[in-house]
């Protein structure tokens, strides 16, 4: 069907390519010669590290015209495209689409190439080609078989051109490879193969091949020893033609010549011819019949006998049929509850197929052919493949055996010979059938393929089920001549064919043939070694048929007792005499009686002898009396026969032992094979490791170079010592301290002079190497100019052991000088803090604790040098605690600075502290540093000032209120604004002056009474003599305003009417103080008499109100020219009273 489709639309041939180690190179060479269009699709299956990205597609793409892609799964095959397997995945192909899969097997047991090839063969059949390139192991060899089986093409890289020839050699070892080529020729090979096939040149050549079949068979027989003459012609021709396509041979005659001359081609053809297709439970219905009609009866009858059931599967190929039968028996025995005493001999001539059969590992796809209940009991499935249980495997023995060439098995209960006879032509089938008849015990079964039959042997095989081709062997001895080995010999066959050809010439020949067949006495032709060369007539009476599988054709071995003793002497005598020799009345012992015969030995040409048996007496059946008669005569013979039986028995047990040993060897072999597989995968991994190591070495080289450059360039003086304290390496900088020369490498450290001052380096190094502890010190050179930090470290190897020491010297002279400068700075700084009385503190947000320094402890009245946050806050006034805490938190979170003034209550007096804080960003652990300054003095000053300001404010307000009052009171006495202003303005000015006096900035003492008086009379002083008492009377501030108004009123009046005005005179103002109060006297002494002033008007209101304010009383007296105002004031007028 597939072929029919192919004809309609030629599909793109798919080339699977398997490669492993060294594959990249081979692939490159293979693809670089590709010329588009090739008309082929390619799939590369390369062993890849599953853990790394593959660069293969990119690498290949650069070197070929073909399009190269890494497979992603699901792609359809396209011509002129190379698909590459991705790492870590298996690859398969279904209906022309690529499919990715996970690996079932652990790494090392995976066979991605095999898997793909098998999938390729199943999907593409004859349209597939496989190529195996460089690589270790044997991956691909099994898959190759599948491809070949389906008619695909197999090509292998010429092992000598492969970097690793493991895979190519393994592949060629199967003998199934069509071409072995260097990589660059592979593409050409594939192209021409598929081109030839599609052109159909083969059809024209078919006839020419058919003509050469006999010759080809002869050539094959001579080389491989297997005769295909009896095989079906059509099959034979088709497979030969395929070989011819492979080889590019068009003419049958050319191919014949090739086969005749080329041993290897012969082998190749042999393999190709044997390829066949088989599967589990092929023709299911037939097996059902077998199960019911044969398996069950056999188990019931024979499973408990000593011998058990013996089954023979000739032509077993890859073993499916044998396993099928084994499962049938096992299943039935299980159902019937009988022991499964079954032995299955599965034979084939193709050892490579037998190997597959012995492995017993089949693709999981084949599992579908096996019924479910059997799968459950007998199958051990794995991910991609499955095996059979030990029970099934132990039932089957696979061995190499030719149905045609080798003696048959015997006492067999069932022969399953399916789809083998179809390859045989009629004559071969006719020779095989009696063999099978012989092999099967009477009542045993024969099971044939659906298109096969027992032919004319229906008299010895009766049909049980015609459709299933199941037959029963009828009772009776084998009556048909077993074709003796000589008959198939190299010499015999052509001769026989020649005779047969001639027999058509005339009746004479027919007669002669009939004569020989029927009437000629039983005769054999022997060679010089008594080997049977030819045989005529009914020989059954004189010879025994082979029973064992031993390959014998010796007449003496085969002859029955009686004849056996005569043949040797006869042949010897005839050879010596070169004449006919005759033995008379020879008694032949057969199975059923005795027979007397004359034996004539007639020497022929070429060292052969014709032996003719002429029966001289009738056959005497054996009976009881006979036994007695014969006893005396045959005692010796019987003795010999008993010995023979014993020998046979021993032989059989020896054979069984050998078989057992053989089985053990096989299983050992299997183990060896799997070990080999493991070794190969190990080898592949080692190759990979080797590559990795190469990379590592490169890296190490680079690192080494880096290190050398570092040694040359660094300012660090480093010396590395080995475990004997000898110099191993040193940096250039080290030579400034140690006078080292390159030749000093390897010298002990103690031999090396150093410029260090008094320092026993050697002893220290020894100490460090002994206890493994690092040593550190500061040393100076001899001149004491430079200071070094010296470190001696143990030199540890990767495993941690100490294997030397490293000495590292760092010049820290500069650092030390910087350090001392820093210390001096620190001292100055401390001094400054101390002198200024500044408190220094540090806050650690993580531990919520303070570190206090400077005057901080005394400022904050804290005795603990490291108080916690709570203790710290407790010192602050209640209102400021929360502020301080949030300021600290904010500073810690946002890296802020803050400023806060707070009151501290301690030791009965409070003080004011100003705090500045700043977050230190690059500190570990994070911290806030700050200073605290005592600002109590400033704060007190500010408080005082505020107090004064308030007082002043009050005073001014009062003043305004008073002036407002004065104005309104005055307004009641005036009609016009002008007169009002004139009346009031002087008084307001006076109040202003008094205020100026009282609130002068420079004033530290209260206002004295005389100051006040002077201020009031001063504007008028130029007009009169004024005497003012200088008795100290400080005036209370509240009294200044009313006093001012009173004094101003008096002075104004004096200007208007008295001594300060037009009147000449003088003014004296004086005051006296006693416990009751203060008495102030204003005396105006004029030149003439004065009148008492009127007391109506605003002035009077002012005076009385002011007096009332003071709590004072005023009286005015006039005595001649003297006008006196006497004011008596309470003591409270005095300041501080």
């Amino acid at each position, binding site marked *: 069907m597939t072929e029919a489709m192919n004809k309609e639309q030629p599909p793109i041939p798919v080339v699977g390519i398997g490669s492993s180690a060294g594959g990249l190179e081979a692939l490159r060479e293979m693809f670089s010669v590709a010329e588009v269009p090739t008309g082929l699709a390619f799939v590369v299956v390369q062993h890849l590290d599953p853990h790394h990205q593959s660069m293969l597609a990119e690498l290949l793409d650069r070197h070929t015209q073909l399009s190269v892609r890494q497979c992603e799964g699901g792609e359809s095959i396209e011509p002129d495209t190379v698909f590459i397997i991705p790492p870590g995945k298996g690859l398969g192909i279904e209906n022309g689409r690529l499919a990715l899969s996970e690996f079932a097997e652990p790494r090392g047991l995976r066979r991605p190439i095999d898997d793909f090839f098998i999938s390729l063969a199943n999907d593409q059949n004859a349209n597939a080609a496989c190529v195996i390139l460089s690589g270790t192991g044997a991956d691909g060899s099994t898959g190759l078989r599948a491809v070949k089986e389906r008619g695909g093409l197999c090509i292998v890289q010429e092992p000598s051109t492969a970097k690793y020839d493991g895979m190519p050699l393994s592949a060629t070892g199967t003998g199934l490879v069509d071409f072995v080529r260097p990589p660059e020729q592979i593409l050409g090979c594939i192209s021409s193969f598929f081109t030839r096939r599609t052109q159909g040149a083969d059809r024209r050549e078919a006839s020419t091949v058919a003509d050469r079949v006999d010759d080809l068979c002869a050539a094959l027989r001579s080389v491989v020893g297997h005769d295909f003459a009896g095989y079906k012609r059509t099959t034979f021709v088709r497979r030969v033609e395929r070989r011819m396509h492979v080889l590019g041979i068009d003419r049958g005659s050319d191919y014949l010549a090739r086969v005749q001359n080329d041993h290897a081609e012969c082998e190749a053809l042999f393999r190709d011819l044997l390829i066949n297709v088989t599967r589990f439970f092929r023709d299911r219905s037939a097996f059902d019949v077998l199960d019911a009609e044969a398996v069950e009866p056999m188990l019931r009858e024979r499973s408990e006998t000593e011998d058990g059931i013996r089954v023979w599967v000739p032509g077993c190929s890859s073993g499916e049929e044998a396993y099928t039968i084994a499962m049938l028996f096992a299943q039935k025995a299980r159902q019937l509850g009988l022991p499964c005493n079954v032995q299955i001999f599965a034979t084939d001539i193709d050892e490579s197929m037998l190997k597959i059969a012995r492995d017993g590992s089949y693709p999981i796809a084949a599992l579908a052919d096996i019924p479910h209940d059997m799968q459950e009991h007998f199958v051990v499935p794995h991910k991609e493949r499955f095996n059979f249980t030990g029970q099934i495997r132990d039932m089957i023995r696979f061995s190499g055996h030719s149905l045609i060439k080798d003696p048959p098995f015997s006492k067999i209960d069932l022969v399953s010979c399916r789809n083998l006879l179809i390859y045989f032509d009629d004559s071969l089938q006719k020779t095989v059938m009696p063999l099978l008849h012989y092999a099967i015990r009477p009542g045993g079964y024969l099971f044939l393929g659906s298109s096969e039959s027992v032919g004319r042997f229906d008299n010895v095989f009766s049909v049980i089920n015609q459709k299933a081709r199941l037959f029963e062997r009828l009772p009776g001895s084998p009556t048909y001549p077993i074709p003796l080995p000589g008959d198939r010999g190299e010499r015999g066959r052509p001769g026989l064919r020649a005779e047969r050809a001639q027999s058509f010439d005339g009746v004479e020949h027919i007669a002669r043939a009939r004569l020989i067949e029927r009437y000629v006495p039983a005769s054999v032709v022997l060679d010089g070694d008594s080997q049977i060369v030819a045989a005529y007539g009914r020989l059954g009476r004189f010879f025994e048929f082979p029973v064992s599988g031993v390959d014998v054709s010796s007449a003496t071995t085969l002859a029955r007792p009686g004849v056996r003793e005569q043949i040797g002497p006869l042949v010897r005598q005839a050879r010596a005499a070169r004449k006919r020799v005759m033995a008379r009345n020879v008694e032949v012992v057969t199975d059923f009686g005795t027979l007397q015969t004359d034996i004539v030995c007639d020497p022929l040409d070429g060292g052969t002898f014709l032996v003719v048996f002429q029966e001289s007496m009738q056959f005497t059946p054996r009976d009881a009396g006979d036994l007695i008669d014969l006893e005396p005569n045959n005692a010796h013979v019987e003795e010999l026969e008993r010995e023979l039986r014993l020998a046979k028995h021993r032989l059989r047990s020896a054979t069984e032992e050998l078989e057992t040993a053989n089985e053990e060897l096989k299983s050992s072999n299997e183990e060896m094979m799997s070990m080999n597989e493991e070794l190969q995968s190990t080898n592949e991994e080692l190759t990979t490791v080797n590559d990795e190591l190469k990379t590592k070495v490169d890296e190490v080289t680079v690192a080494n170079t880096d290190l050398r450059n570092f040694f040359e360039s660094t300012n660090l003086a480093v010396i590395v010592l080995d475990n004997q304290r000898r110099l191993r390496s040193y940096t250039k900088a080290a030579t400034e301290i140690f006078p080292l020369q390159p030749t000093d490498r390897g010298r002990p450290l103690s031999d090396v002079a150093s410029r260090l001052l008094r320092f026993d380096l050697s002893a220290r190094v020894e100490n460090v190497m002994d206890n493994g502890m690092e040593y550190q010190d500061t040393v100076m050179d001899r001149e004491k100019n430079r200071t070094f930090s010296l470190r001696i470290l143990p030199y540890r190897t990767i495993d941690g052991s100490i294997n030397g020491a490293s000495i590292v010297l760092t010049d820290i002279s500069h650092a030390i000088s910087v350090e001392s400068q820093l210390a001096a700075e620190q001292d100055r700084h401390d001094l400054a803090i101390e002198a200024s009385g500044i408190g220094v503190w540090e806050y650690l947000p993580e531990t919520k604790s303070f570190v206090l320094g400077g005057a901080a402890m005394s400022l904050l009245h804290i005795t603990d040098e490291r108080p916690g946050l709570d203790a710290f806050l407790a010192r602050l006034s209640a209102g400021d605690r929360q502020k301080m805490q949030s300021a600290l938190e904010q500073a810690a979170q946002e890296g802020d600075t803050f400023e806060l003034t707070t009151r501290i209550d301690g030791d009965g007096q409070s003080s004011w502290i100003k705090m500045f804080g700043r977050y230190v960003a690059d500190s570990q652990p994070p911290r806030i540093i700050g200073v605290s300054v005592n600002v109590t003095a400033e704060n007190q000053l500010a408080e005082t000032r505020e107090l004064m300001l*308030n007082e002043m*404010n*009050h005073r001014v*307000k*009062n003043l*305004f*209120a*008073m002036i*407002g*009052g*004065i104005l*309104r*009171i005055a307004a*009641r006495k005036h009609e016009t604004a002008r007169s009002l202003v004139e009346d009031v303005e002087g008084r307001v000015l006076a109040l202003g002056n008094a205020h100026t006096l009282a609130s002068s900035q420079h004033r530290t003492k209260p206002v004295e009474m005389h100051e006040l008086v002077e201020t009031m009379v001063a504007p008028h002083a130029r007009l009169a003599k004024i005497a003012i008492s200088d008795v100290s009377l400080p005036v209370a501030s*509240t009294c200044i305003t*009313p006093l001012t108004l009173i004094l101003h009123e008096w002075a104004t009046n004096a200007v208007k009417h008295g001594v300060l005005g037009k009147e000449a005179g003088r003014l004296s103002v004086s005051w006296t103080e006693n416990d009751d109060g203060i008495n102030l006297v204003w005396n105006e002494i004029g030149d003439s008499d004065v009148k008492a002033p009127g007391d109506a008007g605003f002035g009077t*209101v002012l005076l009385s*109100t*002011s007096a*009332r*304010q003071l*709590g004072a009383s005023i009286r005015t007296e006039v005595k001649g020219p003297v006008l006196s105002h006497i004011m008596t004031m309470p003591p409270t007028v005095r300041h501080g009273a």
Partner: protein
Amino acid sequence: MAHKTVLLCEDEMFVALDIQMTLEDEGYEVSGPFPSAGAALACLDDVKPDFAILDVRLVDGDVFPVADRLAKAGIPFIFHSGHADPGKLLQLYPSSLVCQKPCHPAALVDKLMKLHSEQMA
């Protein structure tokens, strides 16, 4: 209608005089002015005023003893002060009124009349 009596505590005599004159112009009778709390308290033993105008700071200290006594007697009063915090005063005496010094006596009279009308109501 009998004249209503206003108790006036004011230590600044010109201011006191001014207020007194204004009140008398409006037809009130003035008790005081008293420059000290002591004098005012002494007066209260004899006189029961209808209203009071109180300067906060007097020569002998704060006027609060007087205010307490007035509040107890249910006599409405107005604070007339130059320095005290009006909020604080209202807090102490919720039913009182406050006039910031300096203020026009007419404003004081307005407030007084308001108290008066409230009393009438």
